[in-house]
């Protein structure tokens, strides 16, 4: 029996994650090292979460997360 899970949409893809997951843990789930994540930013429910809060903010059911970086553009 799995522990309680939450449905979170990350970069447009909904998926189940462990309840109580923080932004830090979510990044690690996606092979992003939060301590080596220069050039990356995160928004939860259309609000930017500063890097300093990545370890504190837990994600609730139906949260929408955007993990972005800079890429080629004019």
């Amino acid at each position: 029996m799995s522990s309680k899970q939450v449905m979170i949409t990350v970069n447009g893809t909904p998926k189940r994650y462990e309840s109580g997951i923080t932004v830090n843990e979510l990044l690690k789930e996606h092979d992003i090292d939060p301590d080596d994540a220069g050039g990356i930013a995160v928004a939860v429910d259309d609000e930017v979460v500063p890097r300093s809060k990545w370890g504190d903010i837990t994600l609730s059911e139906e949260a929408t997360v955007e993990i972005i970086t800079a890429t080629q553009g004019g």
Partner: protein
Amino acid sequence: MEKTSSQNGRTEQPADGLQLGEHTFGSRLLVGSSGYPNPKVMLEALEASGTELVTVAIRRVNLEDDSASGPLQILQDEGYQLLPNTAGCYTAKEAVLVAQLAREALGTDLIKLEVIGDDETLMPDVEQLLKAAKQLVDYGFAVCAYANDDPITCRKLADIGCAAVMPLASPIGSGMGLVNPYNLRLIRELIDDTPLLVDAGIGTASDATKAMELGYDGVLLNTAISNAEHPVKMARAMKLAVEAGRLAHEGGRIPRRLYAQASSPEEGRVGS
């Protein structure tokens, strides 16, 4: 000419550089990072252009495939100041969020604000653009606003406190050059208290020169270099074009006359 050391160590700047918010740049040519044949050509072209400020877009990290890395690291390693854009945003709400994400990711308050009305012409949605500009200025951003060539819209963007107003020469990537130089001239005459750059539609070097001869403070382009047959050569051409146009503007051109005015003296002609 007095020189001061640059913030990013890339070049020394003349004291009369391009001022965008708190930032000063020696080069008046801003170049985009998109559409080059490969990263090596991009870097060589940017080097040849002499630019100090390179635009980038803000997009989702590809969580499925981390092998394909973007240009961010190499641009930062080469010491370029980055100018993130809000390309792909159709509303003020989207643009403000993207700008805030960009600031968080890159640590810069510079933002190229694009709020688009449709994806065929890529013309700005003026209503949403003005709304986004106001909010971002309030949040402390140095807003470089991509605009249409309407003098009233540009005046409003300047009054809002944008760091720069950037009317298009013609649609993004079209290469049509300055299709309405009269509007661009009106905009320059109406706005003397805010840096103006021509952004979008530049096709070749003479377009960039014309923009600078109109008294604009700089030029922003991407496709004209990245999609040229020989991007590095075109980049060098653009560097010289912007410098030539600026010098010509400062040199003060002669007026246009309908009739000839002899340049050799009348006096002392043989047989006179």
